[in-house]
């Protein structure tokens, strides 16, 4: 089975085709165009959606070409229906609806966060992991139980990705700033005290954000280093709590921030202590991509029929723990 997945929740517009045989999937193509805001600024939803609209035809045809699949050979189309920025989401949905109605292909609206997890599981082979989802939109610790992904801990305010991006923007970089911050942090080992806020299984980053801004005058490298050490240790502690509470023997980290080496290092050391297998989604697929949407489409199609065209909305706020998993 071939599925075209369309991702357009935030800065990335991406199309990907995955072929599913039995239970295994193979990514045939995954083409992305990323909207880059001017330095020091964040994503402007209107500008990002314009970027997506302008680039969608090229991304789509390149994706089909690379996969060597014709539109008429597609068995289904899936698109990220949320959560994300409304104007951006609508572009992906329009492309999906157009293909579906013109070529009569079943269409599946898919939860973007679920895509991160399922693609991570598919690529790493993790079976029943505790999952840490860390990206610009999410900071959540999840485990699967009774048809749903249950939240064991999460951020009470901003996400880890937002924290890094906002500090980066404050320092004048263009979003996403994770890589830049990681690079600067690796040049320092000078720790300045910052607030460390773990509330039970949850974390709160807003105070850390303000405090980090205040120490930037002491040197950007020191600030980035101290920020990473504090924020990642908080996440680490929340993960440790969830691991010891659930007793899971596998751990998987997915999402854009999963690409950070220091975070991986910390999580790996935690897994070792808890006798737990560590999985991280490969760097090229940890960030937003069409593959994550395509794969969930394929999984869902094994249990339910495509959505009716009048039900192919987008949902800017769509929490992962409200999605019922049938497969």
């Amino acid at each position: 089975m071939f599925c075209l997945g369309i991702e357009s929740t935030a800065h990335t517009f991406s199309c990907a085709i995955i072929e599913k045989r039995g239970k295994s999937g193979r990514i045939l193509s995954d083409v992305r165009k990323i909207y880059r805001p001017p330095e020091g600024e964040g994503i402007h939803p209107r500008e990002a959606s314009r970027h997506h609209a302008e680039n969608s035809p090229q991304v789509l045809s390149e994706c089909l070409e690379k996969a060597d699949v014709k539109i008429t050979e597609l068995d289904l189309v899936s698109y990220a229906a949320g959560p994300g920025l409304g104007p951006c989401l609508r572009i992906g949905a329009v492309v999906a609806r157009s293909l579906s109605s013109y070529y009569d292909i079943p269409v599946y609206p898919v939860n973007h966060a679920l895509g991160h997890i399922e693609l991570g599981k598919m690529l790493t082979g993790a079976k029943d992991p505790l999952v840490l989802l860390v990206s610009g939109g999410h900071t959540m610790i999840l485990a699967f139980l009774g048809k749903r992904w249950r939240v064991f801990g999460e951020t009470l305010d901003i996400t880890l990705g937002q924290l890094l991006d906002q500090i980066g923007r404050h320092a004048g970089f263009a979003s996403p700033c994770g890589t830049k911050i990681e690079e600067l942090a690796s040049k320092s080992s000078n720790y300045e005290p910052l607030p460390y806020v773990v509330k039970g299984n949850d974390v709160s980053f807003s105070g850390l954000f303000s405090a980090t801004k205040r120490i930037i005058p002491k040197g950007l490298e020191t600030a980035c280093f101290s920020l990473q050490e504090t924020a990642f240790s908080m996440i680490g502690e929340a993960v440790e709590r969830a691991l010891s509470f659930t007793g899971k023997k596998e751990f998987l980290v997915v999402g854009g921030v999963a690409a950070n080496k220091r975070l991986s290092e910390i999580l790996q050391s935690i897994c070792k202590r808890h006798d737990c297998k560590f999985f991280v989604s490969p760097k090229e697929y940890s960030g937003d991509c069409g593959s994550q949407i395509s794969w969930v489409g394929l999984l869902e199609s094994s249990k339910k029929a495509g959505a009716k065209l009048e039900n192919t909305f987008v949902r800017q706020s769509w929490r992962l723990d409200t999605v019922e998993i049938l497969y």
Partner: protein
Amino acid sequence: MKKGAEADIYLTTWNGRKSILKIRKRKEYRNEILDNRIRTLRTIREAKMISEVKSFGVTAPLVYFVDQNKFEIYLQFVSGELVRDLSNKVIIKTCEKIGKIIGILHKNGIMHGDVTTSNFILTSDKLIILDFGLAQRTEKVEDHAIDLRLFKEVLNSAHVAIVNSAWSSFLKGYGKIVGSSRKEKVISQVLNIEKRGRYANVI
């Protein structure tokens, strides 16, 4: 005996008595300055808070000895079962008692900071509360609401089948202690916190 998230737990004796040794070990992954700060703070806080809550009748394990430099606490050994591992029926019933204990703490201006079903032990005659490492002295509605929200989150993730009845049982016990007007205030703050969560409200 057990590797917890925060500390390792050993069964030992202290002056001839069966005792629990709780060591907050150095975490290799954590920056040393940060790590020492956290371990010192929590070790002292835990010992202080346990003695304090005893003064208003909350049953927590006795503190036998604290070694601040080694980040060690010797605690009374309590035999019983973690509430997390009890049968659903018993958990629902016990939640009312948990609510009462949390109510007493809040009424006396203390938030526990880690209200989960694995931090309560049910013995033959008593319910005992553990782990005050994240406890804080605070009268704020927001802080008290955080305790309640965490417990709700735990029920929602680890005790899905009984979440509604366990939650209302908890609130019943909590209300009995703090009074209904304070209870309503805290519950509405819990909803506020949930609304702040990512993607929680539909725009």
